[in-house]
């Protein structure tokens, strides 16, 4: 979906104004720590995957997404997922107290298990059951895809022509994974010249974007 998160090439957002590296803490406030940890810990319940988690943040009104700070968007994301998956109710969130019993069948990791899960990660490489449609060096066009669902095809690249630099193999396809269907598609690194993306542009720069096969079409 072309939500507030789809930011590549947007203008009018002002300077970056980075805090010097040595002066920035990992978390700025305690509530940021808690939102971060709650997001990872509830994710470990296995009720949703990373693409559903991203989609929950992206699905806000764009004005809210842009106005919120980073961890506010994370907070919105877990609240929405907890309700959608039936782990909490809207009433419980509003009242801030338990109304229905917890789901006893869920396995809730303790601290050792949580650290082990973080250290294991979740690789997305999958066995492939077909041949890749594109080869290194092929010219490809990023399709125009106007979906209301989750996608990892940025708007700024849609319609532009680039060149396949590498085939990364078959990886979990976010567009379906975000709807709970884990299936794989070939993932390619595609190189776009700045001129192909922005018309006239800064000289001598290019953008590398990882794109799944369904996002691409042959250029005749």
């Amino acid at each position, binding site marked *: 979906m072309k939500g507030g998160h*789809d930011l590549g090439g947007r203008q009018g*957002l002002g300077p970056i*104004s980075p*805090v010097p590296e040595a002066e920035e803490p990992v978390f700025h406030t305690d509530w940021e720590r808690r939102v971060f*940890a709650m997001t990872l810990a509830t994710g*470990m319940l296995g009720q949703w995957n990373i693409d559903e988690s991203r989609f929950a943040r992206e699905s806000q009104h764009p004005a809210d997404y842009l106005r919120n700070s980073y961890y506010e968007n994370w907070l919105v994301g877990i609240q929405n997922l*907890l309700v959608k998956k039936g782990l909490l109710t809207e009433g419980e969130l509003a009242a801030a107290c338990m109304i229905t019993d917890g789901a006893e069948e869920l396995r809730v990791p303790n601290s050792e298990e949580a650290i082990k899960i973080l250290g294991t990660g979740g690789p997305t490489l999958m066995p492939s059951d077909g041949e890749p449609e594109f080869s290194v060096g092929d010219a490809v066009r990023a399709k125009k895809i106007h979906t209301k669902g989750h996608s990892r095809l940025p708007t700024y690249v849609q319609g532009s022509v680039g060149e396949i630099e590498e085939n990364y193999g078959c990886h979990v396809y976010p567009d379906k994974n975000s709807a709970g269907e884990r299936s794989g598609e070939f993932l390619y690194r595609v190189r776009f010249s700045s001129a192909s993306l922005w018309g006239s542009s800064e000289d001598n720069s290019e953008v590398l974007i990882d794109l799944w096969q369904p996002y691409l079409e042959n250029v005749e």
Partner: protein
Amino acid sequence: MAHSDDENMHSHDGDHGHSHDHTEPPPELELKVKALESLLVEKGLVNPDALNAIIDNYEHKVGPQNGAIVVAKAWVDASFKEALLADATAAVSELGYFGRQGEHLRVVENTDETHNLVVCTLCSCYPWTVLGLPPTWYKSAPYRARAVSEPRQVLAEFGTSLPGSTKVRVWDSTSEMRYLVMPQQPAGTQHWSEERLRCLVTRNSMIGVELAKSADAASEQDQC
């Protein structure tokens, strides 16, 4: 978050670039987060010890010091560098760095001809296993918007200027591939020990917005 809530949180208008720093936490938001945590604990959906362990892991254990160890080793050890560029996931795993947001790692090398810069325009994808959690600016709308369309101006805002002949390659992390930049080893450090070289390798140099610290800069700070 609803507009009415947000008005109590912080001002955005006329405050570009600073609006997400949150030096003064909005009390309403703090209360909301505390209430959610209490509710999750009460319903048995999270273990409070696990929350603390997760925070401790990313606040104190996993961070850019890991990436600095990787880069300094590659500077002094040609066979490690070769292995790192061929299969970074495997090479850094051997140093003990593997896990969430580092399952499929690539290391991209800066040279005189090519400078690499990493961004995630769609969210905040970042190689946690070697850099920890991303800084606020990396997650900010201006960086995500501009790194792909005007990388040299973005670099200039970090005080980084490259020769016009250097090609800038901007890596937009749209997939679960994670990218770590290997900065060039600064001049005059060829005889330095691996341990001493590590303090030249900043987080920002491994994202690609800055170069590694010069030998002089490191000496001035009296850290190496």
